[in-house]
């Protein structure tokens, strides 16, 4: 499988601020890739480098097989971008902006445009200065989704959308994936990423600290276990990887590093298990794991 996006060792400074510090990112063709990180971690800078709007101080960025800086214009005909902060010309209508952007990409699709306007419940005759933040976001989304491109770069695209529209957006992204499009979805809304993304890259302080499928990443974190046993447990506290152990009679609650699960389960079954619930780590815990605990 080829890579739609492949960046390695990207570095970028703004004055004395270090925005990117050797960032590596690989997005495979046809996948929805989550790009996770808190505010100011370098997500937008990365996207702007991928778009050729910024030139990296070091490293290489390849998009759809071309150089992100050198081949920017020809690449842009094959991709669509929804910026995190959608700025529109105040005296144009939403419909005019959508048409203009799609004409500039050279890939307008009138049928799809009409369908998307209905799905997102957007009035195209309003001047954009009269739109709310969410409606401005919709203009950019409709323009991007209505053009038949290979790659969608979405920078926090649901900021400002209500839950109904968010659900509509998710359905749209799933459709795009089914059509074989590649999507890079920058976000800090974890449930969105968890629901949509095949693979995830987590960025922190300008570098990717973790990348892989959600199940890959989960191996690195803890599973929460609650069990009712046949008798009092023994030896659990001495097992490696067990945390927050709480024993009340026959009931046990604990967290265990996901790669040390075997030993814990063996210990539990040796006592005899009456009931057991286990919760895999949520993306949120995964995220906090990378951010709260500094190595």
């Amino acid at each position, binding site marked *: 499988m080829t890579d739609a996006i492949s960046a390695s060792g990207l570095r970028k400074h703004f004055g004395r601020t270090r925005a990117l510090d050797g960032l590596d990112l690989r997005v495979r063709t046809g996948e929805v890739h989550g790009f996770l990180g808190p505010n100011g971690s370098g997500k937008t800078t990365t996207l702007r480098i991928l778009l050729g709007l910024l030139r990296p101080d070091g490293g290489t960025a390849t998009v759809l097989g071309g150089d992100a800086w050198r081949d920017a*214009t020809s690449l842009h005909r094959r991709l*669509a971008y929804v910026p995190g902060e*959608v*700025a529109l*010309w105040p005296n144009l209508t939403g419909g005019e902006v*959508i048409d*203009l952007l799609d004409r*500039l990409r050279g890939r307008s699709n009138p049928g799809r445009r009409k369908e998307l306007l209905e799905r997102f419940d957007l009035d195209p005759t309003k001047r954009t200065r*009269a739109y709310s933040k969410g409606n401005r976001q919709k203009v950019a989304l409709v323009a991007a989704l209505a053009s038949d491109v290979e790659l969608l770069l979405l920078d926090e695209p649901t900021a400002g959308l209500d839950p109904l529209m968010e659900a509509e957006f998710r359905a749209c992204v799933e459709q795009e994936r089914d059509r074989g499009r590649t999507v890079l979805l920058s976000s800090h809304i974890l449930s969105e990423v968890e629901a949509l993304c095949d693979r995830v890259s987590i960025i922190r302080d300008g570098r990717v600290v973790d990348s892989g499928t959600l199940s890959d990443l989960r191996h690195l974190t803890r599973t929460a276990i609650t069990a009712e046993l046949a008798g009092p447990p023994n030896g659990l506290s001495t097992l490696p990887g067990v945390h927050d152990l709480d024993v009340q009679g026959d009931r046990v609650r604990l967290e265990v590093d996901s790669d040390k699960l075997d030993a814990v389960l063996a210990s539990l079954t040796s006592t005899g298990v009456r009931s057991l619930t286990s919760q895999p780590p949520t993306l949120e815990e995964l995220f906090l794991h990378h951010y709260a605990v500094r190595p």
Partner: protein
Amino acid sequence: MTGVWPLVRLALRRDRVMIPVWIAALVGMSVTSVLGTVGLYPDAASRTAASAGINGVPSLVALYGRIYDPASLGALSMIKMDGLGTAFVAILGLLLAVRHTRAEEEAGRLELVGAGVVGRYAALTAALIVAVGTSLALGVVTALSLIACGLPVAGSFAFGAAWMGAGIAFAGIGVLAAQLTRSPRSANAIGVVALGAVYLLRAVGDTRGPEWLSWLSPIGLSQQIRPFAGERWWVFLILAGIAAVFSAGAYVLHGRRDLGTGLLPDRAGPAHADRLLHGPLGLAWRLHRGSVLGWAAAFFVLGAVCGSIAHNLGGLATTPQVKAMFEALGGEQGLTNAFLAAELSIGGITAAVYGIQGAMRLHSEETSLHMESLLSTGVSRVRWALSHIVVVALGCTVLLLAMGLGASLTDGRMLLGAALAQLPATLVLVGITVAAFGFVPRFSALGWAALVAFVLVGELGPLLRLSHWVMDLSPFTHLPKLPGGVVTATPLVWLSVVAVGFAAAGLAAFRQRDMS
């Protein structure tokens, strides 16, 4: 009124460069004007002759105003500042008023501020305080500078009061206009049209009469304070009254409307982009259209007025002074030509004002993130920038042609070519602005600095007997004096080459730099 002072401080912090620069430029113009006049007309007799010459030519009275005390050094030396200078002061008042009301509201910042512990009228009040305070500061600094130049104290303060009056009157007009429209651009446009109208009203009142027309115009009223010519201080109260009435209107309208709305309603627009809005060029035209058409209308009127004045100059040789001036300039034809050439060169400089402002749109499109949306589609950087540059260059051409057309219609001669001869110098300033945008986008305003420098060189060069190479730095030096002068192609071609060179260098730099 809670929260007014923090907002005033915020506004002053934002304008900490803009306001001092404006004041320095206006005061600088006044001081150079006085110093220049002292050298040219050292005694009362020479001043009386010069004043009679100016008062005898209605075109000049229309353009600047009347000199009410012919022997007074102050009245003669400040005549340009009384006219065009006062118009600039009015623009300053207008800009400040709109900038801190409607512009903040459209940007959504007023919403952020308004949710704090801030009264409903706080922003409006703060904008008025800033505009009135700036006008006051301008008046005082100007008066002190004129006194330092040796002009009488009373007249100097009267002149400061005249400027301050114009500033506050247009601040009032500005805050009212800001209530009407949703966009700050439209509010500014309303104010500028109002300024044009009252300037014209004064021109008609001062020349053809009836005289009371001038008293309907804030510009005319400002001149009726008559600095250096038997000061009439009470006229200032009328200007203050105008400011108060317009501001009161703004308060009433502000209290009746919602945040973010204007009184003039927004109409629904087309659901689809038309054929014209097809590429970056179509978009650039759409974005510049309103301002090009507005400026073109003003240029047409200016041309028509100048042409009509020039056409009637012949019948005015009634006084011996004017007759002598006629002879010196080569008879009636010579005078007409000299007048038109001077007016067309002012047209060229004004077209450069449009050109710089238009080219600076590149920078504002970049900072407002509009550029990002376009450059992430299949539009190359150069094509995007060129589309704006082409529209602005064509806009400059249209303005000059509009002026030429207006002048041709009223003068009766074909003046399109004479007007168009200004274009290469105008484009040099567009080129400089593009170069600044390409190399250091933060310094896009460099075009303004260049224009001010060129105009100063043109005005002061002959006065200070600056050497030729300094004068030659200004593109306007190289333009032929048309109509009547000799045209050689070489300087026009070179100016065009320089303009293209600046623009090309700017584009090359822009291709290589980061988006800011």
